[in-house]
């Protein structure tokens, strides 16, 4: 990767340049910079999160799973509706052919 493109990636890792339109190669370069700079976070002191935090996260993930399941069901219903319409049209077409014959 060229020097300028690598510096673009470094700026995206810092957050001083937008990530929009980033190529796959640019993303890999940006992630390499992110991991390089992450050493700065090593000395950050751990702080215990509030006691109910994992429950809140689990609840959020459960809601997300429910939303995904509903979206899947809707997509499936739309697909079956389409299949039913096409099948119905075929039946009507065949019936008309039989009647005409």
């Amino acid at each position, binding site marked *: 990767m060229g*020097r300028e493109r*690598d*510096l673009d990636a*470094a*700026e995206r890792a*810092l*957050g*001083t*340049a937008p990530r929009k339109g980033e190529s796959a190669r640019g993303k890999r370069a940006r*992630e*390499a910079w*992110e*991991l*390089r*700079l*992450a*050493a*700065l*976070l*090593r*000395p*950050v*002191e*751990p*702080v*215990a*999160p*509030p006691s109910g*935090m*994992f429950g*809140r*996260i689990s609840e*959020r*993930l459960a809601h*997300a799973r429910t939303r995904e399941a509903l979206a899947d069901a809707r997509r499936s219903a739309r697909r079956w509706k389409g299949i039913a319409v096409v099948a119905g049209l075929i039946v009507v077409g065949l019936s008309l052919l039989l009647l005409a014959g």
Partner: protein
Amino acid sequence: MDAETEIDDLLRATAKGDRAAFRLLYDRVSPKLFGIALKICRHRPMAEDVLQDVFTDIWYKAGRFDARRGEAGAWLAVIARNRSVDALRRQGRGIIGAATGGGADLPDAPDPALSGDGRAAYLTLIDCLNRLDERQRDLILRAYFRGDTREELAGAVDAPVDTVRTWLRRGLASLKTCLDE
């Protein structure tokens, strides 16, 4: 088993949908990730929201972690840092109050608890940052720890945005050269 290997294994199990592993991973890394969120957001309720976002990301993105490209702990720290910066930008810095004044704080003393590769990577990065021009170093650290945009950096140092961009890029180029030595 060392801590990094354990986190690697827990991430892999989480990627397969193992909720018990996800819980264990939470127990192992949430204090560190919450510490990062607090350091960057400097606002506890915001940091708590960030931590929820971080673990939601981890649940969905655990499969993307590639141990060949870096340590699991660093990969998780990046998620926490980026989510914290996103929250700062989304919610605005107004709620943080007076604590935002001044320059970015570089942790200058190596933590004695740091060991092995982590300590070496940290010391090398600090050494390379210390070799930079003070202005370039301050811009990089402000952007990293405060999530300042180019425009905000320009406002902070009272310089045109294009000039700040040039200083930033020169700093990053020197940093890369030093890290690659």
